[in-house]
């Protein structure tokens, strides 16, 4: 049965996030002849519209109100709700990101809908949409569906492959004027401090170099950062390293903290507590470097080196430099 799908396209720093295209790919799997509509908020969204249509949107609803140029819960809520009322979709998808996971539950509550969050796979089984999502930070998984009515889900970034761009596609574009109720925007963003512009965002990095208690100090993260830089990756940490004050909690990977699934995860001086393994064991390839041959991190590693990270990591950095120059 054909389904009309609405995708709220996630914007960060004025750029369309890849997860928006991933949502469109998921939408095209389930639409079955229905209309795929993308909606994008804020002024200056012309290039974004093209990108969306090349990746599967049949229709794009823009809401160019300048009050949507940066995210606030209430403004996005008002606009999202009015777009949903206009499009009347069977399925609503957006990213499980700072935006998607903040506004979607409020929409779901107002419209009395079920919401399936943080999904890593979408399929249609006997005409029903079935979502796979991790629980216990990936120690287990569930398959869920919505009982009846509108299907609403947020998708975890980096899990659904994007459709190849088809530049011959062009979507029907429509601007929607939204009305904001008096005093509707109850939070004010005074200032945004960018901390991630220099580095690669941990949750979306292809390579993660991660340190545990074995790094011994704040300075101990320097060789890890150098290795990450050579590989175009990001630095992460175990809870042990964060609790010891060697690094910011923003770097923590585990059941509390971030869950990452990079192509390559290099664990340095990390023992491998269950709570840490939950956050990284679904990485494609795992390398462990640890002095202790009995460390449980080796049980999930594809490759292990038993040795002192302060010896091994700089050697590894040099070796990668050599090899990457040759390529």
């Amino acid at each position, binding site marked *: 049965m054909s389904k009309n799908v609405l995708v709220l396209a996630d914007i960060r720093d004025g750029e369309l996030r890849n997860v928006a295209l991933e949502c469109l790919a998921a939408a095209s799997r389930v639409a079955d002849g229905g209309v795929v509509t993308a909606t994008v908020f804020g002024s200056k969204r012309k290039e974004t519209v093209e990108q969306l249509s090349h990746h599967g949107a049949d229709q794009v609803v823009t809401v160019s109100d300048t009050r949507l140029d940066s995210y606030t819960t209430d403004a996005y809520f008002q606009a999202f709700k009015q777009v949903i009322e206009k499009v009347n979709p069977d399925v609503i998808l957006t990213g499980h990101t700072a935006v998607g996971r903040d506004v979607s539950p409020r929409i*779901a509550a107002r419209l009395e809908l*079920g919401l399936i969050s943080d999904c890593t796979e979408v399929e249609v089984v006997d005409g029903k949409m079935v979502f796979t999502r991790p629980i216990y930070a990936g120690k287990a*998984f*569930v398959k869920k569906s919505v009982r009846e009515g509108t299907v609403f889900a947020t998708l975890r970034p980096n899990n659904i492959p994007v459709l190849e761009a088809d530049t011959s596609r062009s979507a029907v574009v429509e601007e929607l004027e939204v009305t904001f109720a008096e005093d509707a925007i109850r939070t004010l963003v005074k200032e945004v401090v960018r901390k991630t512009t220099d580095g690669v965002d941990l949750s979306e990095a292809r390579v993660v170099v991660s340190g545990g208690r074995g790094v011994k100090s704040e300075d101990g993260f320097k060789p890890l950062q150098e290795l990450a830089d050579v590989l175009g990756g990001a630095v992460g940490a175990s809870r042990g390293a964060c609790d010891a004050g060697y690094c910011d*909690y923003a770097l923590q990977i585990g059941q509390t903290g971030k869950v990452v699934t990079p192509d390559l995860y290099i664990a340095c001086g990390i023992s491998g507590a269950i709570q840490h393994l939950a956050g990284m*064991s679904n990485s*494609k*390839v795992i390398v462990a470097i640890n002095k202790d041959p009995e460390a449980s991190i080796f049980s999930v590693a594809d490759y292990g080196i038993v040795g002192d990270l302060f010896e091994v990591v700089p050697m590894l950095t040099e070796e990668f430099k050599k090899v990457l120059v040759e390529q």
Partner: protein
Amino acid sequence: MDILVCLKQTFDTEERIVIEDGQISDDGVEFVINPYDEYAVEEAIRLRDEHGGEVTVITVGPDRAEQALRTAMAMGADKGIIVDDEDLENADEYSIARVLAAVIKDLDFDIILGGYMAIDDGSAQVGPRLAELLEIPHISTITKLTIDGESVEAEKDVEGDVEYIQSKLPILVTAQQGLNDPRYPSLPGIMKAKKKPLEQLDLDDLDLDEEDLEGKTETLEVFLPPEKEAGKILEGELDEQVKELVQRLQSEAKVI
């Protein structure tokens, strides 16, 4: 200041997951306050100590969840409310948010705190859903909170960046890691907590109809990820191992 904290009892983070008869087994499992909710409890106690008032901790769950409330009271919360979830069938985030809203609509409050997500289901829905049902604003994933009179200032973690946000009471905020360092309950705290008031409610007390609270979503299957086989521990001189590793990552694993 009237301060409410919504919390959930969850498995300890060091627990392994075992599936029995298609369900996650809680046999012999250690339970804790969901770590993100623990930040909320700590922040609530600090707000109370600064501004005066009372901290009420609220949970929806089975009998054992009472222990989580007692722990929060041992940390310093003043009283607890537990809503028995026995009559709730197929409850999901929709159901839990509705139950919490029903409890809270009869209470006075200036601020509601909770963790931004629970480490078990990890859906990060109940906080914002509850704020919507109560028609108050919310700020999620906060790492700092300052209240002065009616005005609220918070630092919000936005996937690594920080937003400085202003708003007003009443409000709901959800805690991100880094908000504070939760205290351990002291021995006198534990003794005192035993005597603090704990109210037990069921759906009838709240004029709620269980059919009306049935979850909007259903779980079809619970499964474990494929077990990872232990890989190769490299051998030989360290510089040889490093060379071999890089070569294997290139040609065998093809990730470089």
